[in-house]
């Protein structure tokens, strides 16, 4: 009798559990599409020209190709001080890159306003290249963590004049995504601990400082969003944030300052 009851019970539970299969289905449901301009531009201090990638979003269920996202007939201008620079489409690139044909003087502390018009949409973004923070001291320190692992660090003490986002990398890999330092107050001393960088000629540690317009922080904090990942609760639904204004465009137009240096120059 007990076994019979157990069989009935298992059968009922099986019905209950097997009915829970196939929780995920592909559905034929048209997602709304909102066409937007996509801006991707850097403005490096002391560079001699300006270039910006102007593309557009495509419907979410389409696969991205250069052909689909290219925007080749945009009106693209940069305003600074009392000047206007017209950017032109580069003919030789797969992507729609707009650049300044004539040399441009890129200045620190000056606002550069990008304005892109296309298909009734306008993208406006502003950026100002911040003044590089000054290294006032470097010292070597040994730090022991909670797991008793000892590591040697360089403590770099900075004095900044303008708030910004600092990245430090070795001299050839470009900005290191994993290390940013937020200098959110002006005229303040900040300490940054870094491990040893690439040794040049078995002699010195070389590093490069990148100091971004503070708006870069919004992008940096959200750079891994925009992912429609699965899971029972769906995706986060958060976007990559940038500094392009309005609802018709997205993206980043960011100025930065950079400098290469060596540890030994400052080491006490």
């Amino acid at each position, binding site marked *: 009798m007990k076994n019979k009851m157990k069989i009935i019970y298992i059968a*009922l539970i099986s*019905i209950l559990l097997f009915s829970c299969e*196939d929780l995920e*289905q592909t559905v034929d449901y048209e*997602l709304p599409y909102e066409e937007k301009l*996509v801006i991707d531009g850097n403005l490096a201090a002391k560079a001699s020209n300006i270039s910006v990638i102007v593309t557009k*979003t495509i419907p979410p269920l389409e696969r991205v190709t250069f052909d689909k996202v290219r925007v080749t007939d945009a009106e693209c201008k940069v305003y600074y001080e009392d000047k206007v620079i017209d950017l032109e489409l580069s003919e030789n690139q797969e*992507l729609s890159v707009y650049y300044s044909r004539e040399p441009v003087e890129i200045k620190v502390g000056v606002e550069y306003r990008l304005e892109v018009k296309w298909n009734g949409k306008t993208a406006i973004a502003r950026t100002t290249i911040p003044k590089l923070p000054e290294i006032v001291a470097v010292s070597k320190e040994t730090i022991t963590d909670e797991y008793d692992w000892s590591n040697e660090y360089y403590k770099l003490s900075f004095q900044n004049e303008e708030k910004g986002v600092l990245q430090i990398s070795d001299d050839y890999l470009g900005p290191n995504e994993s290390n940013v330092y937020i200098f959110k107050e002006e005229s303040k001393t900040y300490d940054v601990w870094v491990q040893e960088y690439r040794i040049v000629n078995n002699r010195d540690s070389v590093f490069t400082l990148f100091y971004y317009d503070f708006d870069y922080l919004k992008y940096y904090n959200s*750079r891994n969003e925009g992912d429609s990942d699965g899971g029972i609760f769906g995706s986060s639904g958060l976007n990559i944030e940038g500094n392009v204004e309005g609802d018709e465009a997205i993206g980043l137009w960011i100025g930065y300052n950079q400098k290469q240096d060596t540890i030994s120059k400052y080491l006490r």
Partner: protein
Amino acid sequence: MKRTLFFILFLFPALLFGQEKFSISGIVSDSVSKEAIISATVALYSDSIPSSESLIKGSYSNKFGFYSLTNLVNGEYYLYISSIGYTKGAYKITIDNADVRLNSALPSSSVETQELVVTADRETNTTSKISSVNITPSFISKMPAFGGEVDIFRTLQLLPGISSASELSSGLYVRGGSPDQNLILLDGVTVYNPSHLAGFISSFNNDAIKDVRMIKGAFPAEYGGRLSSVLDLTMKEGTKDELSGKAGLSLISSKLTLEGPINENSSFMISGRRFYFDLLLSLIDDNAPDYYFYDFNAKANYKLSENDVVYVSGYFARDVFDLEEETDENAGINWGNSTANIRWMHIVNPELFTNFSLVYTDYVFNADFGDSDANFNTASRIRDIVLKGNAEYLAYDDHVIKSGLDITWHNFNALINLDGSFDPNDVNFDNGKTINTFDISTYIQDEWSATDRLDLNYGVRAYYFQEGGYFDLEPRISATYLTDADIRLKGAFSVANQYLHLIVRNNISLPTDLWFPSTENLKPSRAYQAVLGAETNLFDDEVLVSVESYYKSMKNLLEYRDDAEFTLGVPDEDQFTSGTGEAYGVELFIHKQIGSLTGWIGYTLSWTTRQFDELNKGKEFYPRYDRRHDISMTLNYEFNETWELGAAWVYGSGQAYTLPTGTFYWNRGYGNDPYEFSDRNGVRLAAYHRLDLNFMYKFEAYKLPWQLSINIYNTYNQKNPFAAYVDNEYDYNTGESKKVLKQITLFPIIPTLGLSVEF
């Protein structure tokens, strides 16, 4: 001088009217169990044949069954006491220079009447019933139930104006408010996080509950501390007749309720449930985690005298999750509520009714993860100790004046340990973060039957919250007017503040969510709500038709910021951001109350919006639970004495959801091409609809009444959306992958069985 003043104030009015006044008062109870009957209608007539012309005055019994009719002169009267499910009591009473005490014991009736009350009879003050619904546990037990386990919250979700965020959640989203905006009281005790299985099943055992009162908004001054609504649950006291009980068995749980007399002056009730997911899972997989939950209710009362009763009640609920893998890694989580309440009901005299409570409530969550080398554990807790007193003053004709005072001490604790020494059953919070605060609230309200047609309820509640030093006044007013066409017009306005907040992600409440108090930086939430409506009874009172519209404006609502990091323990205030909200809508309720076929149709047309400067670029957005159209139909049909059918069909227009509206090339990214999402919850998922059935078969075995319930959840197997996302799907035929929209469905058709017996 003092004597003169006393004479003027108190004795002079009596002399002016010249005739001494007396009262009729007493307690209305069930004739068998002797349990108090709540909201029984009490009407006094000058003639043995009740009519509107012979009606002298009316009243209704309160939560303790007490009623009082005052200011009566010597003479003969006819008193009628009625309540749903009971035979009407009729008494001839003579007042002869003395107050009359009449305790009425009503026998239960088998008359097919409604078990859900939306309005009261004409004799009572109807203002306190605005936006209010009373449901009996027996009605709830007839509704279809997931897994055969009756759920009070899921039945309430079938009412217009109350919706669910998703199938996963039993949380009540009332008129555009979130679940933490509901004041949930069990015998007057606030219950935090009242759910099992991460919000899937409410933690109240229907068998232990005597009365369920839901006020959807603009509640009277006697309630406070929440913005949206009140769910006031009253536990059974325990029959004074003889030891009896009820046992239930379903595929996912078992439960047992016992009640009976202790002696002639006291009785008890205990009830427990145990859900055995751990046993189910172990049938399938030996390594499946242990997960189960249980709850326990108990109540006892002792009648000290005709005018004094002491009640002691308690509630204890726990969810336990334990995962021990073959490696030495382990994970354990448990959480739950405990409450205790000692309440003294004291009738000072027929004109003054009081009750006093000492309350303790405790919600605790703790988790333990790790292995033999390292352990990580966290715990959080909120505890309240409350002293409260309430009084009802019944001396004036046509007025019931209520007042009360609550003093609550709140203690919030959170702890994170990395040292591995952790006993989840005995958490020492001494080393954790603690917030201690207290609040004091007091109210006064007058339920005034201004004329035969016009009822008013006005009052004010004052709040002081120590953390942040907030002091607020909350005016409340409501009115009903009965027109010549027998249509009752209703209107109400209220202001409410909320000082404790449950801030959740994705609108899905988890046990890790912590209640957080208002502080200097986090201002209390505040809501202004207005209600307008009308109702009437048709077809000899068989059908009630009610229409209510509401508008609610809320400010200082709290949400997590987009860039907030998930942390256990007490969250940092910086993780929150505050904004405003708005909710408005119209509710239609058509309820067939009498006959072998009963049921209702509810329709809600509503809008709910939020605006936060730091969310959605400051633009207004819909919360996920915003539903434009919500329809619910319930039906209960008695085929014969053996078979009965309960059915519920629900329809909700698509829930607001965030989905991609574009994709783009991004040179800086390292992964797939990113998506550009809609505004927060800017896309609608497909509409939701579902039919649930419950066939009840009653039979007798071993000389006991049994009931077999055959529940079919989602009868026509509708694949309702719970969530959606864009995915890459590989096509084995073409060797290419393409992007598709995936929908997650939680529950297809699920048939279950339940068996119960009363003894």
